[in-house]
């Protein structure tokens, strides 16, 4: 922006602000102390007249930086929306008058709070630039789909239907994945009472007929680099040919592999004849193609026992400690294969919990019952050969007795293991290229932090966000199907449509230089001053999204389209060379430095609160709506993520005479709630080192506290501020007051 910065500060008197604080004084402070070019007060700033007053200044006075000192930044967002200007918000309502009592005694400190928030808002906006958008933005409409099973084929077909070309890469020689090896699938339409066509043949036909979809069979990705809008992938065929293609986004639908049933000798697999897995039975049924299913040695099958949860839902060594979700219904489907052929075949499903959820699941369960499938709640301990047939030993849980049943065929409902590629958290991130785990990478990402998408748990690439299931930690790469979470075919199709939506959306946003979720639409991006960089690599290691690589001279290489704008890199940088146009070390640092620090004789401490804008800040706001009071000595600054908190802010605060600092972030650890995944955790780690800094200043460690705050902590968050005020009362004011 070549234009000169011209700051307008606007102070609202509405909602009781004018009754509680001296807004004329705040106007003076804005111009005299904070050097705003224009400062005005208004009875009711968010109404049409107030908005017009501001807009007129923008249009006629050249105001291009606006500080609005009224309600919380969460309120009246639509009203205070001006084009082509930078905007900051001073929170006088929820942050001052609603958290302070309306008494004569409190008047002075309430006024001080309000005055400070004016100084803060003006100084924040002074250091903000209006984001211009990334120059790296590239628009490439082509989607890369990895995996040619039901999920991947769905993604390809749906993307093409939306008008986006697709390259579909499949490792094997055919499309169709696991479903192609099945005789039939689960029903996908009411009345959900019989096995149904898998739909695989139709999907393959649709793909083959679609000029918009290029299929690469017998192929894998040997290198993937770039960022949304400009991914480059080496697609290598078994034959040795490699082609390089460019893509806007990627859908990873690499599915699952079968659990190795030979780890279940107690269930007879590999020992007794005619013990098969569900997948093997489906292959047998496919071979029989509607005829009677025979044993491998060609004998009739008159009785079948299905053993549910074989090697699943168990903490035993070598077992899967999760439920694969589809197996109960798959066993019903397979029992119905036999019943459709010959109703006299005995089919018994031995289960611990029958899991047939929703409309389709329960209807299908009833169809099984109606067709004479037996369901036994039991716990199978052993399957052994018993002459020509098998004996299944189990505890009948209902009759509370140990018993056994004979069967010609035993089917083990074994689980699915996701094909998620290399677990990059396992192999460590220190030196790129050194992976010891014996799993092939799927994506072979040429990223500093590793070759594949980080896994969440049990090998699945799930997001761990209940509200945002598609958010991976690699921007522009979305997973779907059983690689993301155990699921059946119908769910995989729905999942693939959703992932395709996110991928195509990211193609559009990357083309415009806009951030992806959760700061969707944000045009800012991190930039760094190369000359100041010491190549310490902290930013490249800490970025929760692996957005930063290293260039040949070992400087950080920001990939803007991979960045989610959380600011963790900015918080990490010890030399403070990383910043965003509208969020930087200065936009926060100048706020805290411009708070008026009374000298020690006034006995008015100052507490700096850096609060996550998504959870802690709203919690404080909602506490304020209930008029929950907190100390008048607190000054709250919202931050994008606690991960963006740079230690310099703490040091600056301490050096300028603050008496305490509170950091409020989201829950970290296994059940993290941080929307930037790692931000809160990283901040907690950084702060654990702040004790040294305090010690070097001869300050008590309890002057800085870091908390995990939930959005529902409407009473706890204000209380923590009051606790700090009490602590300061006990240990005394900071000696660093001037």
């Amino acid at each position, binding site marked *: 922006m070549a234009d000169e910065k011209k700051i307008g500060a606007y102070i609202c008197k509405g909602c009781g602000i004018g009754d509680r604080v001296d807004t004329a004084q705040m106007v003076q402070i804005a111009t005299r102390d904070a050097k705003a070019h224009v400062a005005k007060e208004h009875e009711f700033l*968010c109404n049409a007249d107030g908005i017009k007053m501001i807009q007129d200044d923008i249009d006629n006075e050249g105001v291009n930086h606006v500080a609005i000192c009224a309600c919380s930044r969460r*309120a*009246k*967002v639509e009203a205070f929306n001006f084009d082509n200007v930078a905007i900051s918000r001073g929170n006088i309502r929820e942050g001052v008058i609603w958290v302070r009592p309306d008494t004569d005694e409190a008047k002075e400190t309430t006024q001080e709070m309000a005055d400070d928030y004016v100084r803060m808002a003006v100084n924040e906006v002074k250091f903000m630039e209006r984001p211009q958008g990334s120059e790296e933005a590239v628009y490439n409409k082509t989607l890369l789909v990895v995996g040619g099973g039901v999920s991947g084929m769905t993604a390809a077909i*749906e993307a093409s239907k*939306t*008008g986006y070309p697709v390259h579909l890469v499949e490792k094997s020689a055919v499309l169709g994945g696991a479903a192609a090896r099945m005789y039939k699938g689960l029903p996908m339409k*009411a*009345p959900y009472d019989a096995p149904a066509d898998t739909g695989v043949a139709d999907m393959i036909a649709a793909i083959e007929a679609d000029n918009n979809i290029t299929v690469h069979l017998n192929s894998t990705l040997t290198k993937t680099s770039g960022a949304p809008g400009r991914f480059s992938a080496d697609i290598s065929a078994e034959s040795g040919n490699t082609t390089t293609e460019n893509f806007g986004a990627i859908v990873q639908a690499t599915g699952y592999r079968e659990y190795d049933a030979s780890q279940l000798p107690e269930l007879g697999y590999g020992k007794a004849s005619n013990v098969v897995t569900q997948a093997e039975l489906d292959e047998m049924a496919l071979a029989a193609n509607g005829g009677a299913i025979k044993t491998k040695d060609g004998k009739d099958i008159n009785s079948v026992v299905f053993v549910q949860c074989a090697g699943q*839902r168990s903490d035993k060594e070598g077992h899967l400690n*999760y*439920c694969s979700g589809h197996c109960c219904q798959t066993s019903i489907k397979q029992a119905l294969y036999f019943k459709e052929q010959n109703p006299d075949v005995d089919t018994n499903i031995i289960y611990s*919990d029958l*899991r*047939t*959820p*929703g*409309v389709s*699941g*329960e*209807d299908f369960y009833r169809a099984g019952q109606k067709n004479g499938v037996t369901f036994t709640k039991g716990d199978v301990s052993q399957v052994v050969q018993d002459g020509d047939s098998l004996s299944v030993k189990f505890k009948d*849980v*209902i009759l*509370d007795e140990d018993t056994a049943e004979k069967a010609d065929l035993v089917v083990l409902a074994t689980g699915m293991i996701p094909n998620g590629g290399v677990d990059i958290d396992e192999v460590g991130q220190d030196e790129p290229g050194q992976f010891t785990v014996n799993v092939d990478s799927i994506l072979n990402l040429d990223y500093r932090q590793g070759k594949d998408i980080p896994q969440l748990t049990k090998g*699945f690439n*799930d997001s*761990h966000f*209940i*509200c945002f*299931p*598609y958010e991976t930690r690699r921007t522009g790469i979305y997973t779907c199907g059983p690689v993301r*979470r*155990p699921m059946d075919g119908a*769910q995989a199709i*729905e999942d693939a*449509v*959703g*992932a*395709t*939506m996110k991928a*195509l*959306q990211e193609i*559009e946003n990357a083309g415009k230089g806009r951030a992806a*979720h*959760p700061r*969707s*639409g944000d045009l800012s991006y991190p930039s760094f001053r190369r000359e100041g960089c010491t190549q310490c690599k902290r930013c490249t290691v800490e970025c929760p999204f692996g957005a930063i690589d290293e260039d040949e001279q070992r400087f950080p290489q920001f990939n803007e389209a991979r960045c989610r704008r959380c600011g963790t890199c900015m918080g990490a940088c010890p030399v403070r060379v990383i910043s965003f146009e509208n969020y930087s070390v200065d936009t926060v640092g100048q706020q805290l430095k411009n708070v008026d620090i009374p000298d020690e004789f006034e006995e008015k401490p100052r507490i700096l609160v850096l609060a996550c804008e*998504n*959870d802690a800040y*709203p919690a404080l706001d*909602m506490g304020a*709506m*209930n008029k929950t009071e907190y100390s008048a000595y607190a000054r709250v600054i919202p931050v994008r993520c606690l991960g963006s908190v740079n230690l310099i802010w703490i040091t600056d605060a301490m050096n300028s005479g603050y008496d305490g600092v509170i950091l409020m972030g989201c829950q970290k650890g296994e*059940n993290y*709630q941080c929307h930037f995944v790692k931000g809160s955790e990283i901040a907690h780690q950084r702060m654990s080192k702040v004790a040294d800094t305090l010690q070097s200043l001869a300050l008590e460690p309890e002057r800085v506290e870091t908390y995990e705050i*939930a*959005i*529902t902590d*409407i*009473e706890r968050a204000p209380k923590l501020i009051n606790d700090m005020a009490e602590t300061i009362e006990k240990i005394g004011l900071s000696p660093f007051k001037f």
Partner: protein
Amino acid sequence: MADIIATNETILVVGGGISGMTAALEAAEFGKQVILVEKTPSVGGRVGKLYKYFPKMCHPTCGMEINQRRLKMNPNLRLLTMTEVSAVEGEEGNYSVTLKTAPRYVNESCTACGACGTAVEAEFDNEHNYNLNKRKGAYLPSAMAHPQRYVLDPAIIGTPDATKAKEACKFGAIDLDMQEQETTLTVGAIIWATGWQPYDAAKIQPYGYDRIQNVITSVEFERMADPHGPTGGKLLRPSDNAEAKNVAFIQCAGSRDRNHLKHCSRICCMASLKQTHYVEDAYGDDGKSTIYYIDIRAIDRIDDFHQKVKANPNVTFTKSKVARIDENKGNGNPILRGVDTEGYNRYDNEHDLVVLAIGMEPSVSDFPMKVVVNENGYIEQAESNGGIFAAGCSTDALDVNRAVQSATASALRAVQVVNRVAGSEG
């Protein structure tokens, strides 16, 4: 509402719960024009009334905050609250939709300062808390309400309270002359996301929800656990406000039952497992939970949550469909009668409080458009639905995660329609 601009490249999303919000936001962030209509005064739906999510035990309001911020920031999306769809005509790529907007009696000038709420006197059942407490006749639906704008209960219009509210407002935000408005729009595709409602527990006669005070539903229990709720987060039973330390959870209350809902409502097992944590969080080892169940459906990778609860000595699992609940007239305790099917033992178990893990039924039964609906009342995917796509719990009983997936998928289907329209016209 003359300023609403809609064309056959616009997507209409019906329902402002998690599914509708998601579908609307995903489409809008794709760059499409979206109109989101919500029947009640604010968005959030059922999810906005939950205290915590399974399996992370995190707060739905956390994701809601992000979604609301996305709503506030997105210029492609227009939200209309207190609005219902009364008629849909036309075909894929060209629908004519009639909307009815009920009067809020509060206009955009509202700052949510709360003066009107303080001024009025009459109180009404609080829908946000499933009527477990009262709210004023001028109210903000919840602390998280978006739009952050008050609403007047129509029952106070014409009463002195209405005048009091109007006089209290310094900003001219109260307009007592507002009338119902009807608007007709053209849109290209429709996403139907009207969600679910709890099955009417009183219909399950043997459980005595309408007779025994200390028999409540799982959605009501959620409100009790919430610090924003009617008890300020304390688990107090309705009859005497005593602490409910010995809590029974009855699974499949209305679900998997031909007399009620034929389907499995999917979420209830995990919801009860989650709610045992509330009991333990409130009372530690003094808090005891008993889950009466048929099958525990803690499906897929979150089964470990079930395993952990199962290992908790303060939680008992009884495989039984409870036959009947009576009340101990002396202390108000519900007495559960039935047979434990593991070993066939009869029981008469007394608890402080019974929580019915209530089933989900579709919230709309009379659709204003032609769509394929299954026996359970959910909308099926079908070619003949044209450019109308169901999302979330309009399609099936779904948990939040799956509802969001479904909504994201439906957004793509709607985008495909408007892209076709744009292509054929461009």
